């Protein structure tokens, strides 16, 4: 597990039913590409977040496959629409098998 991995997500607190809401997500992660070499010239092994998903009450909003060309601290911004109040679940999958999760509730009026 990489150090200091911290997911950060911005979701509006409330929305109207069916309205498009913007979700911004960022997770602090080095996204080591596997292309770099250390001072001795040995390749640094790849360790990235290879998949990111956002679900709302079990229904998929976005399922993204990430590759080493995604920057350090991968940032993803997208839009969702929600039919009713509920909880977003965000999941990041690390190359080493770690899974980072966070949730965010939204009230629909």
């Amino acid at each position, binding site marked *: 597990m990489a150090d200091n991995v911290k997911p950060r997500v911005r979701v509006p607190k409330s929305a109207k039913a069916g309205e498009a809401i913007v979700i911004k997500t960022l997770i602090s992660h080095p996204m080591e590409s596997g292309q770099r070499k250390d001072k001795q010239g040995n390749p640094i092994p790849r360790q990235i977040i290879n998949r990111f998903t956002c679900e709302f009450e079990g229904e998929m909003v976005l399922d993204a496959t990430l590759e080493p060309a995604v*920057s350090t601290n991968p940032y993803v911004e997208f839009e969702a629409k929600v039919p009713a109040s509920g909880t977003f679940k965000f999941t990041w999958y690390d190359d080493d098998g770690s899974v980072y999760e966070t949730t965010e509730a939204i009230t629909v009026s």
Partner: protein
Amino acid sequence: MNLTRRGALALGAGFAATVLLPATALHAAVDEALAKFTGGAAVGEGGITLSTPEIAENGNTVPVSVSAPGAVAIMLLAEGNPSPGVCTFNFGPLAASQSATTRIRLAGTQRVIAVAKMADGSFVQAANEVKVTIGGCGG
């Protein structure tokens, strides 16, 4: 060093091969990634918007937005990176729009390609050239 005519020709041919080889290998990798995504289907134009900066000062974080109304998935490719794949967005039923923004690494000045798979199974693509001042793949 004495160069015979034959030697010079052979040298020239060898030089051309070494220069051309990476270029063809590069396109092979892009074509391969495309074929894997499209399954060999023809890729059209239009219906997809890719926005990238014209000049990126730092290749380590280049903001990229892509939008393709009616798409089920969008794949981003960077032609000039050591491996061309960047990311693939698969949109679920609750996505309000088939658009996403992220930040990517570019090794140098190159074309960034976005390919969208539409709900009817067709494919469209858009490509933008991005000039990169400092490459972003370490050294």
